[in-house]
């Protein structure tokens, strides 16, 4: 194993290959087989209006403010060198243009009301975090999932981290939107045991309009996964008014279910608990206030998927009542 981060000098750490990660979630049970740890890479090449992880969109460190934790100690304002913070009766005004994500405010805040989102890790550091749950992976047939954002945005790092995982005999999954260069995927795939691929929209025009990338790129990536012979689970987020039409499922499965390496199809119900995250990031959310889907709606879409020839159909997520 390479030298540990503790014995790197500052300049070595500066020059080393690092990944910007916004969360390492343990006991992940919805991101692939078994019990897993999911590493969330910060930065995304897509801009879907329904995004559940807005803190994963930008490939830079940024701060979140939690209103309920703030006691107006104002330590943050005092330490901010950019003069980017102002506490008003309406809440904390964060000048996102000025904020450079240095994180001094989060460090100074006694209550944890300001959190820095995103931390740079060496691949070895992430490895030493995720091996903590090895006993759970071994017993359950689980392992590591790299997700995002779009993890391939940081493909050099992801490749190195996954290589280390394989060196340490950990099962690996890549959770990708398929919306990034094929070359990046090809670089990473040798170290991936299974791919979780999001196919969101079957209509090419709408796909481009909503996600910001062409559907063709997703299908190309899917083809590459097949050529590598890697098993893949296809996942479709079911978003009311966007992806919840039967025709959409039908269209997706038309080009997906013919592939041998597709082992499973998941429908993921829209969830609205991310609204508060948008607020904390001073972002607008287009879907704010949208109600959850009906249980029966998810059931009928799952039945539709089966009738379209999808194998191993599952649906999960929150529904009304």
């Amino acid at each position, binding site marked *: 194993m390479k030298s540990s981060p503790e014995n790197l000098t500052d300049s070595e750490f500066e020059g080393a290959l690092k990944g910007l990660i916004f969360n390492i979630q343990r006991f992940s*049970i919805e991101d692939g087989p078994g*019990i897993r740890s999911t590493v969330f890479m910060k930065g995304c090449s897509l801009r879907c209006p329904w995004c559940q992880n807005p803190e994963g969109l930008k490939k830079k460190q940024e701060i979140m403010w939690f209103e309920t934790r703030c006691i107006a100690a104002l330590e943050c304002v005092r330490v901010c060198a950019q003069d980017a913070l102002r506490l008003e009766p309406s809440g904390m005004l964060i000048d996102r243009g000025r904020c450079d994500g240095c994180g001094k405010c989060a460090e100074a805040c006694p209550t944890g009301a300001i959190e820095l989102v995103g931390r740079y890790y060496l691949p070895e550091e992430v490895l030493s975090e995720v091996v903590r749950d090895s006993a759970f992976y071994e017993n*359950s047939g689980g392992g590591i999932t790299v997700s995002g954002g779009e993890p391939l945005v940081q493909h050099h790092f992801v490749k190195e981290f996954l290589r280390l995982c394989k060196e340490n005999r950990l099962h690996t999954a890549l959770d990708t939107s398929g919306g990034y260069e094929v070359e990046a995927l090809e670089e990473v795939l040798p170290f991936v045991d299974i791919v979780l691929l999001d196919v969101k929209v079957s209509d090419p025009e709408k796909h481009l309009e909503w996600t910001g990338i062409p559907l063709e790129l997703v299908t190309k990536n899917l083809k590459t996964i097949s050529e590598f012979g890697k098993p893949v689970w296809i996942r479709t987020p079911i978003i009311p008014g966007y992806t919840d039409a039967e025709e959409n499922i039908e269209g997706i499965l038309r080009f997906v279910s013919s592939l041998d390496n597709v082992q499973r199809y998941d429908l993921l119900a829209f969830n609205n608990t991310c609204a508060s995250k948008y607020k904390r990031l001073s972002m607008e959310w287009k879907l704010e206030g949208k109600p959850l889907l009906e249980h029966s709606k998810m059931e009928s879409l799952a039945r539709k998927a089966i009738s379209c020839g999808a194998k191993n159909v599952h649906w999960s997520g929150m529904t009304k009542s």
Partner: protein
Amino acid sequence: MNESSQAAREIWGPSQKLSERVSRLREEYADIESRKYFRNELIPFSNGKGWDTVWSPSEWGVVPELFQFQPAFLETLPLAAKTVELPGDFWDKPLILRAAIFFREVVSTYIPVRILDGELIVGGHFNAVLSRSLNKKESRHWRKLTKKWIKLMGELNSSGMGNAGATPGHLIPDYPRALRFGLDGLISYFEGLKENAASKSHLDFLEALVISCEGAKAFSKRYSKEAEKLASSCTDERRRQELGEIARICEKTPGKPAETFHEALQSLWFLHMLVMTQESYPGPGLSFGRIDQYLFPYYKKDLEEGKLTREWAKELLECFWIKPNYAYDFMHRVGRTRGITSGYGQLVTLGGHGPNGEDVSNELTWLMLEVIEEMNLLEPKPNVRIHKNTPPKLILRLAGMVSSAQGSPFILNFDEKSEAGLKWEGLPEEDVWDYAPVGCLENTLQGNDRSGTVDVNINLAKAVELTLFNGKDAASGKRLGPRTGDPKRFADWNDFKEAFEEQLKSLISKLVSLYNISDGLRSKYEPTPYLSALVRGCAESGRDVTNAGPEHNYVTMEGVAFATAADSLAAIKKLVYEDKTVSMAELTRAIRENFEGNEKLRRLLLNKAPKYGNDDDYADEVARYLSRFWTQEAFKHQTPTGRRYRGGYLSWNYWVAYAPFTSATPDGRHRGTFLSNGVCPVNGTDRNGPTAVAKSVGKLGLETAPSGDSHTISFNPSLLKGEEKIEKFAFYIKAYGEVGGTALQINVIDPETLKEAQRKPVEYSNLLVRVTGYNAYFTTLGKEVQDEIIARESHGF
């Protein structure tokens, strides 16, 4: 159907599949208000002498909430007592024989006999308090010691340091031997021992065991007669036959060996219920041990011989299952919202492995799980032993039951970790595979081990307070511990640590002194010869079970507020001595003032100090140090009777009771906020999920706390919805056994449902939740504990 009753229907309750008989018996039990024809309420029996006593305060020492009632019990119970007529030479005999004779007279003549309509396992009244049978001189001495104990207990308890008292129950009698040989077999064994008894006192003791067994035999025959009587006037043919069979069985067992499954269950219940009568105690911790193992041969034989069907076995088991619950009639009048009304803990142990690590779960294990699932009862509380060879399908079955019953119907006991502790405390390596828990999750050997598993309770957070204030109570200024110096003058963490260790050692010694009074008192004046007849080692050594007669004898000191103390130490180490962001002067001032006017510091302590429970090596290292230090310190002590103190983490309800008597703490807790319980992290501080908290618990090196540790985790129901997630949860349980602690209990409920239950207690009367090491009907818990559980679930995974 409206929304709320729909919600209530999702709560685990008695199954629709229960037979009409069982369903009716269960309802009858649950509805004590209208069950006027039979209530198993306390009956006092006295010898009629003015100095007699039927109530021993020190037996209830670890239930401080009863303190306010103690004087009343002491004075009124003898007045209300039935006077037992005793043989003329009664007072000429030594105490051990008087105790045996008194027991024999009560059970063979006085205690009412009652068979409930339709029941197949009989044995109704057992809640009694018996005269201690002391003569005038003994009584005077007993009162002196009791007074001494009450005084010291009052001091330690009211200052929040802890409590201690020699408590009945909390052991597993050797029931299998009594089933196999019958009491007659035991009697002839005792008679045989008389031939080699070296002393008069040993001879008397063996005679006392014989007398007690004769009493139990006479007792069962009274039930036989009652069944005959009922049969003769019974017009329902089927019931008449059942009563005939009951009469036959009660005539035979427990005197003679049990030969059928029905006989074994009936014999077991008689043997068990009489221990509660003998001990004048409604059963807390009196446990059955590995019931699916020792009942299996009877079950298998009857099935093979065509005498029994699986369905009838289940009917018998369900009738048996209701019986231990009647212990709760004891406190009926005290009120249904006392903690003690849910935690009697007559455990049954299921599953586990054999001497060579092989899994020994069997058909009866599975049948009993079915019974547990369908009955939805508090007792007998099941613990399921899990080990590396437990069949995956059994774990999956358990995971399924956990996910559909809000406070899982059982505790999971992990064999490898549990056995490591029992080996560490010095039990024979070749015996520990056959261990079983008592009470909640306290590990012991079966049939030969009294480990006093709840007898001493120490508030670890109090030692932090005393270190911060140089041995004085923060509120009263009263000196409670040694002078370890003004912490503002400590140079570094090591200075602080040394002072803390001094305070902790002193606290341990104080509690040991307190316990030793009650142990001395009990060993001298409160023998229980009937129980001694059922515990290996007593007859052979000539010593009563209350006097270190069993083959193995320990006293367990249970750590309370462990995580509160550990996080407090971690905060001091990190923020005061390493980062130097907080000064000791500021910290002690803020704590004395309960953080008033210094919310900023409190938040800093809460948010910037490392917290145990997150698989954070810094915090977990401090926690491990604390755990190993105090448990090894406790292990250095012994009672004068020769019982060694061992550590454990049960913490019962004291995390509530001692909260107001513990100052604010350096982890950012206000005075009055509940302390942490068992080995659980402080509420809301474990933020890395269920795998991380399991690792933190595992890192403590819990073999030095061999009694076992209470770890409760909470899952939001959505996390365990659907087959796939339940399967993953089963894998989690398996892995927990490798990396976690000795015992795990799981709540699967969301805070909204609990709040709804507070508002509509009637609709949610079946709702069982896990508290500390036991489950309880949520709506019968006190409001404080209810709120605490809601807070806990709000931080669930």
